[in-house]
């Protein structure tokens, strides 16, 4: 099985994991509100976008 914490440990993989973890948490804690999910995910994207962008370029 693939082990995500031993490879691809870069900003993209870390942020992706944070996003999926947050989606899972929101699903159980606040129901499946798409608005809340989008808002929270946008925050995560914006927080890491500069580093991801620089990393990619």
């Amino acid at each position: 099985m693939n082990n995500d914490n031993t490879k691809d440990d870069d900003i993209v993989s870390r942020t992706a994991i944070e996003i999926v973890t947050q989606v899972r948490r929101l699903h159980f804690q606040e129901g499946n509100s798409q608005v809340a999910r989008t808002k929270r995910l946008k925050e995560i994207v914006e927080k890491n976008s500069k580093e991801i962008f620089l990393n990619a370029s």
Partner: protein
Amino acid sequence: MLLEKITLTDWRCFYGEQQIEFASQSTKNVTLIHAENGVGKTSLLNALLWCFYKKNTPRFEKPNDIINHQAVREGRSMASIAVEFSHDDNLYEARREFRSNNSISQDNVKVSRIGLDGSYDHVRTDQNLFLNSVLPSDMAGHFLFDGEHAEALTGKANTSAISNAIKDILGCSFVNQSIIALENIETNYRKKITSKNTLQKASELELTILKYEKARKRLNLEIQNLGANIETMEARRASIERTLSNFSSIKQAQTTKATTISTLQREQKYERSAVARQQTWTANNGSYCLTVGLCQLVAKLIKNHDDETASKTRFSKEIILKILQIGECVCGTCVNDNINLQNNLRAQLENAETQELQKRLSRVASLTRKLQAFDTAVAFEKFTSAKKKQSEHFDTIKNAEITLHEVTTAIENADVDKISSLQQESSKLYRGILEAQQSKGEAVVKFRSAAKNLEKLKGQLDFINFSAGDDKVAIENQTASNLLKQYLQNKLEEEINLARRVINSFVKEIIDKTARKNFKVVVDKNFSINLLDDWGNDMAKSEGENQLLGLAFTGALAKFAKVRKNSKSKLLLPGTEAPLVLDAPFGKLDPIYKHATAEFLPNMASQVIVMVNKEQGSKRVLELLEDKIGFQYALVRHNTGPQNLKSSETLEVKGKKIEITSYDSIFDGTGIEVI
């Protein structure tokens, strides 16, 4: 997770409180439940799904009609399901109650840990989260399995069902939700980006700035290196000069030698000059000085001659002759008439001089006067001075020759090679220092120019960023969203492909043991389950084969979930070990397939709960399962009405006859009887 017990209270067809204890030993892991159509097999399966997740199987009718009708008639307004299960060496109870008061319905789940003393400790974490960690709801549908519709998984038109099942077992739903959300976010940001040209310019400026910054850094380093080189060379040169100063006497001698040679050459030149002056003096003044005495004598003789001649005649011979010739004197006196005068003139002619002689005497007299005027003392003084200078230069030359001889001897005795080598090195260093200083100067100029340009470009960038800052951020966010989405999609695809290969292998293992035909099972790229003959041709599947494949696939999913139990993936959910609850697994199988299935069923999971009707649970099937059965139950239909003309239904297990339909009962509903 292993199911220990289920308690149904007034839930759907189950009247009052009914219990089933499940077999959970590894040697006897099968719980067999006998039930005819409409008695409650599917309700029992749904009771588990409802308790854990408030979910139902797709074909479950009237899912909101929860409370047993007779219980309602008797005034009760609550139904509940309580499931005891063991997980990670602990015993838990999940209880969901449904209450209906004045048209308001409530159904909450409560999870408690059951202590060794029988006490119930409420699980403090989120109840749904906890249950999902034990058996994720997405996976539950594949463990709590409706065997009557197994072909739904394997039919050609249902490839998405296989794909979804694998995704469910992998726990992909949150990754999928994340991908969809990221797609929306990316679209949102894309709409915000308006001025791409400005941003392109900003991007180009950033690249240029980067180039200048690199150049500035490089030049700064170059300046520092050159400075360090200069310092090193200067230090080395100073050291050499200090060493050379120890040879100062030699150096002095060298200097003296050079000076002396120079002096010698100069003095020799001066001496030659003094000699030349004397020679010139002699040429110019020698005759005067030698003839000065003679001049006095000549002057006296000429004077005496002139005095003597003047006393005899005042005319020259040529004038006297002319007077005599023409016979008239210059004063107008006629000579021819005067003999005395003629005789006098002829007597004067004897003493008179010619004009030529008079001229010569006059020139000699003039010369002697001039020579007599010559200042001999002054002339000799000049000669003496030139002579003295010559003598001085001669002395200086002699002294210089002595000095030159001395210093040449001293230099010849010294280690001139070493001095020369050091001197050469010093000179080389000096040139190196000059070159390095020049290079450093050029680098400094370039550095200042780069700094100036950099400042200018940064100013331009600031201006662009000020006007297009929002766009830049939007592009960064859009790119990041896209990269994150792609990352998740790739990861998901990797995992699904891996899962497909593993499940394919498991299905093949089961089919090899059970199917009567020699075919290969292949889950293709599109998640279609295909049967291939020896030549690789796709074979048509019968209904029974489809159901067999569906069961095999379910077993493979259960095994795959168990394999993934310890997965460390942070994106996907870990797998789980869960009971397999099979509702009518033998539905459309012929006897041979039924028997083969009965043999592999106990091996499909750690705990297997099988619900069968009389036809499915044939004598041979029961014999094959017998060693693995821990508990057996029969669901009995109770009717308050009379039997009338209806025939009795009995079930015979282990030689025991059980009435599976009861009439004139005290309630209408299903009861559970232990066999």
